[in-house]
């Protein structure tokens, strides 16, 4: 059995992160010492590695909790996980598209600001943003 410190070192993470994962119901100690300290089994390290890899792929902690449930469900198949991975990719691609659009909008503002020596009250970027705010209201 591993203490929280040893598990954190093994999983290359912090004890605060492990406590956070526990509050999010992603991991739980296998046992406690007589003094109440958490004890983890070897599977916890694999579970933490899984969580970190999934976070790296963009999954939220809620989604990771679902993936962990699927991982242990006999009736689940790889197709269930694959569908979630494809949906995550769709969401990421959607965000990329939105960010590219933001980047292009900034390009236009930067290009329109031809004279950077103008006083700030004549700044075309601020004027354009103020117009945009006006359109929203």
């Amino acid at each position, binding site marked *: 059995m591993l203490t929280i410190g040893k598990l954190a070192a093994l999983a290359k993470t912090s004890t605060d992160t492990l406590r956070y994962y526990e509050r999010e119901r992603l991991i739980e100690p296998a046992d406690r010492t007589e003094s109440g300290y958490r004890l983890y089994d070897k599977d916890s390290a694999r579970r933490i590695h899984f969580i970190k890899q999934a976070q790296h792929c963009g999954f939220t902690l809620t989604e990771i909790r679902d993936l962990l449930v699927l991982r242990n469900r006999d009736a689940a198949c790889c*197709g269930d996980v*694959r*569908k979630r991975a*494809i*949906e995550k*990719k*769709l969401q990421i*691609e*959607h965000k990329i*598209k939105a960010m590219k659009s933001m980047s292009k909008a900034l390009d236009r503002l930067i290009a329109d600001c031809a004279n950077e020596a103008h006083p700030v009250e004549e700044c075309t970027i601020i004027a354009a943003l103020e117009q945009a705010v006006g359109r929203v209201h």
Partner: protein
Amino acid sequence: MKIELFHAPGCSRCAAARESLKAAAETAVTGLEWREVNVLDEMDYAVERGVLSLPAVVIDGELVFSTLPTPRQLRAALIGRNLRGH
């Protein structure tokens, strides 16, 4: 009217529902164009249409169902759009 069913290959729910949905659509409207879109082949197009979950149904370019509808729900949506003159 054009219906596009966005799906991922290997999705057993999509495969099971496909024929009944297509049949329901064909009874609801005439001149139906039915297309099945594999999102892995057409990811950019799926993103363009706002598809974030699978399976999804797009009618005439508009995302109408982001989860799999029942044949009855699809039929009702198509008839409703027809009445509104889409």
